[in-house]
């Protein structure tokens, strides 16, 4: 890690050479997609200095790294593509035609299939990453958003912001096996470590619906009340959980805060003021730092998770959306 950081500080060209030499090492990069600039900005995780910008198709939003970290997939909403960034070379190596307005996506654990929500059409597109072709379209409620493949590769969960449901799609048959009613305008999802709970953030409802993944019943609902914030401004969207499953961080959108949640008791431990319209969220590998994109103040907040305080805030392009940390 130390060696890598030194390389990065030397010069960006030298850094690429070093990285090529250490293919399996983490890059030490923080990636931020910026909706209005059509770029992914790359920061050095250690210094938070901006290293470069990667030009993408129009309106890059959701991002995800491949299992080995060599590829960064970026959904480009107005480009109608998922751009695939070569992390070594820091440029787009190909653009996958994925249908109209891709919003979010997930990749199967075996990396054979990519599932993307097509926001305009009310579809989930299934893309075969091996054969490099679209293999299926599945009709869901309008404005599908969150996509999550279960780690056992059996089902895909998809939220529909209009139907106010989580659709459960059987991967084998591609049929909707359940439509679970959740809160208003459901956005993102995450599974607890034991896979028993599916958390769904409801942007307009202002809550998180917790679903039992065996019965598909909503078992509880988390709500938020940061001090001095009106209920109508509380719009939870982004979520991330620590590896031990004990703590979750939830961005609260227009409430400009991140909630720190004890996952077992479903209680909020603290609220951290971050920036305007807190949206995307990610932890670094040792979970010492939390990164949050603020869409309406055009910056990225870095939070010290021990002290639960913002330690740095850096400009991150116009309307920063998602953040991925590879350190």
């Amino acid at each position: 890690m130390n060696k890598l950081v030194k390389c990065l500080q030397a010069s960006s060209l030298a850094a690429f050479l070093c990285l090529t030499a250490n293919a399996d090492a983490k890059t030490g990069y923080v990636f931020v997609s910026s909706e209005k600039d059509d770029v992914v900005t790359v920061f050095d995780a250690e210094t938070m200095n901006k290293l470069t910008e990667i030009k993408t198709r129009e309106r890059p939003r959701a991002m995800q790294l491949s299992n080995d970290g060599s590829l960064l997939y970026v959904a480009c909403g107005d480009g109608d593509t998922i751009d695939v960034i070569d992390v070594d070379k820091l440029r787009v190596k190909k653009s996958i035609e994925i249908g109209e307005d891709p919003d979010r996506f997930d990749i199967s654990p075996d990396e054979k299939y990519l599932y993307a929500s097509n926001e305009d059409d009310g579809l989930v597109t299934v893309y075969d990453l091996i054969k490099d072709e679209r293999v299926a379209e599945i009709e869901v409620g309008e404005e599908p958003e969150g996509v999550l493949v279960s780690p056992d590769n059996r089902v895909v969960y998809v939220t529909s912001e209009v139907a106010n449901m989580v659709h459960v799609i059987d991967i084998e048959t591609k049929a909707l096996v359940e439509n679970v009613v959740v809160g208003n305008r459901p956005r993102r999802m995450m599974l607890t470590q034991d896979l028993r709970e599916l958390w769904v953030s409801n942007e307009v409802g202002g809550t998180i619906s917790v679903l039992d993944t065996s019965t598909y019943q909503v078992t509880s609902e988390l709500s938020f009340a940061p001090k001095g914030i009106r209920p109508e401004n509380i719009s939870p969207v982004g979520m991330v959980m620590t590896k031990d499953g004990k703590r979750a961080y939830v961005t609260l959108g227009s409430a400009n805060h991140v909630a720190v949640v004890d996952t077992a008791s479903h209680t909020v431990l603290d609220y951290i003021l971050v920036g305007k319209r807190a949206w995307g969220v990610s932890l670094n590998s040792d979970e010492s730092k939390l990164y949050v994109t603020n869409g309406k103040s055009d910056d990225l907040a870095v939070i010290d998770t021990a002290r639960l305080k913002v330690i740095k805030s850096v400009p991150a392009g116009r309307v920063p959306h998602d953040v991925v940390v590879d350190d």
Partner: protein
Amino acid sequence: MTKLIHTIGGLFTAMALFTLMGSAVASDLTTVKIALIEYKDDPRYTHNIMDARYQAQPWGRLSEALILAITESRFAAQKKGVKFVLERHELDALADLSDLIPQLEQEGTSFFMLDLPGEGVRLASTSAKLKTSTLFNLSALDNSLRNEFCQSNLLHIAPSRLMLTDAIAQYLVSKKWNEVLVLYGKGQDDEAYLDSLKVSAKKFGLKLIAEKPFTLGNDPRQRYQNNIALLTGKSNYDVLFVVDSAGEFAVDVPYALLKPRPVVGSSGLVPDWWHWAWERNGAPQVNKRFMKKAKRHMTGYDWSAWLAVKLIAESILRQEQLDTGLIQADIKDATFKIDGAKGYPLNFRTWNNQLRQPVFLTSLNRVINRAPIEGFLHPTNNLDVLGNDKGEGSCHLSVGT
């Protein structure tokens, strides 16, 4: 009665019937009947007005928006075993409402989509016999409907005129454009509009330095009322507010003043409750879906119709059983929430059944700001700084509940 049968029979060809259902067997489904009530000679829907694309005026009838919302509600319908049926009724005369509404109630219609002028909304609401019938006012802005003519089963989705004038007043105050010259039309609607502006001006501290009536036309003998330069030349003011419910005079006012001043009200910067250029809160997706269906941009009037169906679907989705009375009570409940793609969870004010909602301040192709304007605060819900707050006005539906 004969006339009624004739009216309905005569309208049958014009009456569109839309059915959307889930995959369940048709006989298992419960029918939810929705009736769209329109007035053939509605002055807001003349071809001249619709083709002119005036700001904050309807650009077409509202059936497409209703059908779009029914389509969007198919997963809720499927989940609950419900079938939405939409009937469209076009009235020859507003007086026919007193027979039509009870007739439809008898035939099992519980949800009425009123796209009528204020007088029609009032007549429809007093014609309804059943408390469990829910009447949605989609397009009448009259403050009186939210005051002396309010009714517990009449729900206003369109904002009141006062919410619109409050929104623009907040904006003017935030810009310190405090001195306002007003040009107003002489019709009843414009008088009500002017009254509303006066209330908003007083509430937010605007100074209306003069109110001058205008006349449409080119008659030189009336030049002091029809010539915009003469109307606006002598006064000193920060901003010109044109009060013109129809829009035909207002459209020519920007760039025609003798002094270089912004124009607001019925043209220029116009308060509206939806705009095709709003780019946040999922609005682009709604606009794209509407555009695909209707082949034109979505207006506030369309948004009202779209939202009304979504209110019903949202409530059905969250009810154990289908009961029209319970659905109405649920929609009116203070804890109800609906997403209208404008930000903020929306619901109804319990004291006058007015939908709380943000109001856009719009130019032709841009949303310039969204009211409540930053800095205008309310003790409980910021959206209540637009229109009649609790305890204001003459409607007190929530008293004793």
